[in-house]
């Protein structure tokens, strides 16, 4: 199946700013691939290089085995859905969708039929004569999709296409986009800073930071097995604990945090010395005060944030750190009161020792990259 993209040591420098720093990414044909990261992480620049709007400083962009890095955008068999859609305001919907067909060999009748098909695909039949200013945001987005898909590209690039829509519409379109991709079998390369979007839609996610790929894998992999502090922090809420690895056993290690020793059975369990561990708030069990046993830490509820279906408790544990824990809103009020004494159970298989990062991979490190490189 065509549509495979391989980026090899791809680098883009803007004057003295390195926006994309020698990344290697495999995007298998027919997959929904997402580049996720904060603004300035280089994801949009990478997408623009694949589209051909930016010329790589060095590296290769292999599209089905051919390096297209020096091919101008109008000769690449990839199409883009822009963040702001970029619908031509002087053309109606049909004119927009038919725009690119002029450059493909097809008869007038064929052209008309393909426009109708594309509009049908995005459920906009009957809107042919509308101007883009007469469409809602969601409809404009679908015209932009139809305009790109009508050309039957091998790869569809989407640059934060849902960013400008309100939350409800966004949820609907997430499902629709994913279904469309599955139906067409085209490779989708999707750029977003929204971790939830990335997790729900993608077959594969590359988490980017500071022009580099921090981690790539399936949504479950990057969420459940983050390899770096940055990935752990960027994907969802996570608790970070600093301590010392005091002993290792096969498949687990003992972490000394404050005056407690916790067993951690995930991640880099062979660590020694200063180590960091993370645990997702939903993996922490909140138990009544006084329960004792392995991997339990007493603490005080500092804040209880009501989220509707659950509470997010901020619990200050012995030793000073604040951990976040999720408690379902199932009618056990005692523990969700601020000031309540509780015991936190941090199961060993939810506690993940992080590999020490070579660089300080905190989101703030990417702030000096200009907005154009986001």
């Amino acid at each position, binding site marked *: 199946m065509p549509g495979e993209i391989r980026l090899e040591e791809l680098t883009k420098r803007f004057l003295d700013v390195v926006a994309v720093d020698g990344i290697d990414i495999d995007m298998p044909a027919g997959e929904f691939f997402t580049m996720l990261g904060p603004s300035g992480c280089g994801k949009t620049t990478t997408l623009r290089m694949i589209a051909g709007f930016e010329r790589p400083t060095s590296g290769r962009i292999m599209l089905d085995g051919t390096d297209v890095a020096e091919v101008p955008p109008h000769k690449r068999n990839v199409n883009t859905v822009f963040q702001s859609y970029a619908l031509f305001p002087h053309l109606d919907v049909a004119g927009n969708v038919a725009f690119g067909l002029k*450059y493909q060999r097809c008869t007038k009748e064929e052209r008309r039929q393909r426009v109708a098909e594309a509009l049908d695909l995005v459920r906009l039949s009957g809107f042919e004569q509308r101007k883009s200013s007469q469409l809602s945001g969601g409809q404009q987005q679908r015209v932009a999709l139809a305009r790109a898909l009508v050309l039957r590209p091998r790869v569809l690039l989407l640059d934060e296409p849902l960013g400008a829509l309100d939350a409800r519409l966004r949820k609907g379109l997430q499902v629709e986009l994913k279904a469309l991709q599955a139906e067409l079998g085209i490779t989708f390369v999707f750029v977003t800073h929204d971790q939830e979007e990335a997790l729900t839609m993608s077959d594969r996610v590359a988490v980017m930071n500071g022009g580099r790929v921090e981690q790539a894998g399936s949504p479950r992999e990057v969420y459940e097995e983050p390899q770096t502090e940055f990935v752990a922090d960027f994907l969802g809420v996570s608790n970070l604990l600093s301590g010392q690895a005091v002993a290792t056993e096969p498949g687990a290690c003992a972490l000394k945090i404050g005056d407690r020793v916790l067993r951690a059975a995930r991640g880099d369990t062979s660590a020694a010395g200063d180590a960091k561990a993370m645990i997702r708030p939903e993996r922490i069990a909140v138990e009544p005060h006084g329960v004792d046993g392995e991997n339990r830490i007493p603490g005080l509820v500092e804040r209880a944030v009501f989220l509707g279906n659950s509470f997010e408790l901020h619990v200050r544990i012995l030793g000073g750190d604040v951990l976040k824990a999720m408690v379902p809103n199932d009618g056990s009020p005692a523990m969700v009161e601020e000031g309540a004494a509780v015991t936190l159970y941090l199961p060993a298989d939810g506690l993940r020792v992080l590999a020490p990062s070579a660089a300080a991979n905190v989101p703030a490190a990417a702030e000096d990259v200009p907005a154009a490189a986001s």
Partner: protein
Amino acid sequence: MRSWFVNPWGRPRWLLLVTVLYILWSIVPVAIAIMFAFNNGRSRTTWQGFSTRWFTGATGSVLHDPALQGALKHTLFLAVICVAIATPLGVALALGLQRWRGPGAGTVNTVMLLPLVTPEIVMGVALLLLFLKVFPGIGVGTPAQAIGQVTFTVSYVVVIVRGRLVSVGREYEEAAADLGAPPHDQLVRVLLPLLAPAIIAAAAVVFALSIDDFVVTQYLSGDASTVTVPMLLYSTARAAPTPALNAIATVALGITLLTLAFAYLVYRRFAGGREAAVAAALEV
């Protein structure tokens, strides 16, 4: 009375008063000049009743006096030539300057704006010397007048079109390229249609500037056939003025106002609210 003027919650009435006074001050002389174009007599100061004899009358009117007729025709001819040359040239320059990011781009930008701030008399003298000494083949006359007007009006085209270019951005061109359009098609199928309102507005401004221009056109004029309306107004104002002068001035003013109103409306209609600032600048 005091509270009517000094009311912190009310409208700024002092400002309103000053504004109204200024508008009256600037409009009244023009209104009087227009009024006497319709005077039923030879006086330009004493009202003798309403008539249109200075526009369409059998003798000495705009319609039948050969000198007035010639001036009006030459003015319009120059304006059309000037629009036909300055508009495409200015659009090309605007596109080039916008895309040019190399060294020297800033300097060229400044140079492009120089004609907007250079005193016209300086430009007039300079162009006269140029056509007499450097390019004697051109000399003075209609071609020199046209070139002179293009020289300073092209800057206005550049400024107006660049404003629109900035607000349009590169995205539409990128979208066109993405859909397979080669550079020529990106320009013709996408960019030029998007720039159309600015181009039309710029053309109208050039037209109005050309009709109103006196200094450069005067300096570069040759024989009597190259006299324009402003030149005629200047030269005959001291000789034997009749209300026909007011009439031809009224015609010129009318053409200018109509052109600018047209430009403004086109711009508003097609460019939407985003370029309101540019549109407002056009009103001046």
